[in-house]
C-alpha cells in the first residue's frame, strides 16, 4: 500500500482538532465556545478539501514518522474512509452550530459547561483517526479516545440518571476495547504485523484466527450496541444533553461499525463462514424488531429516539449476511454485492442525518417544555412549526419512505436480499419499517392534535430549530448525488467486495 500517493491531509485531519482542543483549554467558558465552533468549522472545511483531494487523486496515504509498516503506522483515506469523514464533518458541523446556541441559552439558565467543546473536538479527532487508521493497535487507541470522550460528554449534565447510564456505558466500552485488544494480541502473535493491508495477505485460518475474530467482533458489537449488547445505549443516549445525544447516536456508534466492516471484509475473509454472516444478520434482525418495538412502547421522546437507534443499527448488521457468500457462489456472479454495500453506506449516512435531527428536535422540545413526555407534544405544529417539520422529515427518513436517504438504504437492502435469494430477511426489514412508521406517526398524530391542557411552550431560538430542520432536509438531499457517490465508492478496493468463505466442515470449518 506504500506505493500510493502521499498527502498531508490524514495527519492534519487528526492533528488540527486536537491542536484546537488543546488550545481551547486555555480559555474560559465563553472563549472555549468560540475556539470550539471555529475549530468545528475549520475541521469541516479541512475534511471537505481532503475529500476533494481523494476524488482527484484516488486513495492517499500518510506514512507516520516515515517508517513503513509493519513497524510504522500508516494512515490512508480511501473513498470509503472519505465518505465516513464527510458524513462526520457535515453532521458534526450542524451539531456544533446547534451546540453553540444551545449552550448560550443554557448558560443563561444554569451556567455553562466548559468541558463540552474540548471533549467534542477530541472526539472528532478520534473519529477521524479511526476512519483513517490502517493499524489494528492504533484503532484501539482511537477507539479509546472516542470512547472516553463520548462517555465524558454523556455525563456532562451531572444528573444521577446520566451518571449511572454513563458508568454503564463506560464499563461496556472498556470491556469492548479489551476484548478487541485481545484479538489484536492474538493476531499480532500469529502474524507479526498490525497493518490491515498486510494482514489481508498473510493471515492464515486456524483456531487462533477464529478466536481472534470472535473476540474482536464481540468487542466491536459491544461498542456499537449490537444486539444483545445494546443494553447500555438507550439510557446513555437518552440521558445526555441534546447535542451530545445527537452526536453519540448519529456518529459515535458508527465508528465501531466501520471497524467491524473493514476488518471483516479486509482481514478476516479467511476465517469467515456463511454461518457467521447469518448469525450476525440474526443479531441485526432481532435488534431491528426489538428496538423498534421498544421505541413504540416508550412514553418519552428521547427514549423513543434512543431505542430507535438500536433498531437502525440492526439494519447495518443485516448487511453482513449478504456480503458473505454461500459456498459455491463466486464474487463475480454475486450481483447483489453493490446494492448491499450501497444499502450499508446509505443507512449509515441517512441515519446520521435523521437521528441527529431527531435528537436535536427533542432537545428543542425539552427546552421549550422542560420535559419530553410525548403527551405534551399536542399542538406542536401550532407552537413550533419548524421543529414539527424536522421531526416529520427525520421520521420519514427513518421509516424509509421515498424520496429520503432512508428509503434508498432500505430499498437497496431489499434489492440485495432478493437478488441474493436470502428472502428470509425481507419480512424483518418490512416489519421494522412498519413499527418505525408506528411510532413516528404516533408522534405526528400528537403533533397535529389540538391542544387539550395548556402546556406553555417557552420561546426557543429559531436558529436551533433551523439547524434541526436542515439536518432533516439533509437526510433527503443525500439521495441526489447517489450516482456520483456510488461511482466514487466503487473506486475503493473494498466497496463491492464479498467474502467467498472456506468450505463448511473443512479443516478449519465453523468452530
Amino acid at each position: 500500500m506504500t506505493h500510493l500517493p502521499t498527502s498531508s491531509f490524514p495527519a492534519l485531519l487528526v492533528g488540527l482538532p486536537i491542536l484546537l482542543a488543546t488550545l481551547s483549554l486555555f480559555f474560559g467558558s465563553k472563549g472555549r465556545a468560540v475556539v470550539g465552533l471555529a475549530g468545528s468549522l475549520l475541521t469541516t472545511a479541512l475534511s471537505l478539501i481532503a475529500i476533494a483531494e481523494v476524488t482527484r487523486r484516488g486513495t492517499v496515504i500518510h506514512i507516520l514518522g516515515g517508517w513503513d509498516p509493519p513497524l510504522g503506522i500508516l494512515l490512508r483515506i480511501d473513498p470509503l474512509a472519505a465518505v465516513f469523514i464527510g458524513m462526520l464533518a457535515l453532521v458534526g458541523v450542524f451539531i456544533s452550530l446547534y451546540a453553540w446556541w444551545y449552550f448560550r441559552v443554557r448558560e443563561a439558565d444554569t451556567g455553562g459547561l466548559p468541558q463540552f467543546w474540548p471533549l467534542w473536538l477530541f472526539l472528532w479527532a478520534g473519529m477521524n483517526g479511526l476512519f483513517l487508521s490502517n493499524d489494528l493497535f492504533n484503532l484501539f487507541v482511537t477507539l479509546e479516545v472516542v470512547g472516553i470522550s463520548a462517555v465524558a460528554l454523556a455525563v456532562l449534565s451531572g444528573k444521577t440518571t446520566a451518571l449511572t447510564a454513563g458508568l454503564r456505558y463506560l464499563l461496556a466500552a472498556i470491556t469492548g476495547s479489551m476484548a478487541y485488544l485481545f484479538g489484536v494480541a492474538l493476531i499480532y502473535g500469529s502474524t507479526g504485523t498490525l497493518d490491515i493491508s498486510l494482514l489481508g495477505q498473510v493471515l492464515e485460518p486456524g483456531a487462533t484466527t477464529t478466536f481472534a475474530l470472535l473476540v474482536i467482533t464481540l468487542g466491536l458489537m459491544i461498542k456499537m450496541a449490537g444486539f444483545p449488547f445494546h443494553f447500555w445505549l438507550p439510557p446513555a443516549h437518552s440521558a445526555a444533553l441534546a447535542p451530545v445525544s445527537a452526536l453519540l447516536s448519529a456518529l459515535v456508534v458508527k465508528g465501531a461499525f466501520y471497524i467491524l466492516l473493514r476488518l471483516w471484509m479486509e482481514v478476516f475473509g479467511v476465517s469467515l463462514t456463511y454461518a457467521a454472516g447469518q448469525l450476525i444478520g440474526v443479531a441485526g434482525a432481532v435488534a431491528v424488531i426489538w428496538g423498534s418495538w421498544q421505541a413504540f412502547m416508550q412514553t418519552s421522546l428521547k427514549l423513543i429516539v434512543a431505542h430507535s437507534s438500536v433498531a437502525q443499527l440492526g439494519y447495518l448488521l443485516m448487511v453482513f449476511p449478504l456480503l458473505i457468500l454461500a459456498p459455491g457462489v463466486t464474487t463475480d456472479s454475486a450481483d447483489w454485492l453493490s446494492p448491499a454495500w450501497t444499502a450499508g453506506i446509505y443507512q449509515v449516512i441517512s441515519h446520521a442525518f435523521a437521528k441527529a435531527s431527531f435528537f436535536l428536535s427533542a432537545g428543542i422540545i425539552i427546552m421549550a417544555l422542560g420535559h419530553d413526555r410525548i403527551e405534551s407534544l399536542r399542538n406542536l405544529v401550532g407552537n413550533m412549526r419548524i421543529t414539527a417539520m424536522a421531526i416529520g422529515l427525520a421520521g420519514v427518513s427513518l421509516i424509509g419512505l421515498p424520496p429520503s436517504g432512508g428509503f434508498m438504504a432500505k430499498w437497496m437492502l431489499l434489492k440485495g436480499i432478493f437478488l441474493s435469494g436470502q428472502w428470509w430477511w425481507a419480512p424483518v426489514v418490512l416489519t421494522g419499517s412498519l413499527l418505525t412508521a408506528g411510532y413516528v406517526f404516533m408522534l405526528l398524530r400528537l403533533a397535529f392534535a389540538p391542544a387539550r391542557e395548556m402546556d406553555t411552550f417557552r420561546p426557543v431560538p429559531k436558529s436551533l430549530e433551523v439547524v434541526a430542520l436542515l439536518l432533516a432536509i439533509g437526510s433527503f438531499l443525500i439521495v441526489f448525488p447517489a450516482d456520483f457517490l456510488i461511482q466514487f465508492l466503487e473506486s475503493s478496493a473494498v466497496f463491492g467486495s464479498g467474502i467467498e468463505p472456506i468450505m463448511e466442515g473443512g479443516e478449519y470449518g465453523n468452530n
Partner: protein
Amino acid sequence: METYQIYSLTSAVLFVIGIGGVFITRHFIKKIIATMIMGGGVFLSFVSFAERDALTFADPVPHALVITGIVVAVASAAFALALARRIYQQTGDISFSNDK
C-alpha cells in the same frame, strides 16, 4: 512447554476471569477491577509473544503497545472510579439496580 506458553495460557485465563467478572460482579469497584484484570490478561499475552519472538532482545513492539495500553486502561479506570464515586455520593448506590 516453554516459558511463554505458561504465560500466554495464563493470559487467556485472566482474560476470561475478567470478562466473566464484569458481567457477574455487582459492585461498581469490582466491575472496574474486573476490567483491569481483563486488561492484565491481554497485556500478558502481548508480552508473552514478545518473549517468544526474542532475538538479542525481546520484541520491543508489544512492550511499547502494552505500556500504551496500560496507561490508556488506567485513564479509563480513573474516570470510571470518578463516576462510581459520584453516583454513590448522589444516591448511595453501589451497584446498578436491576429494574431496568
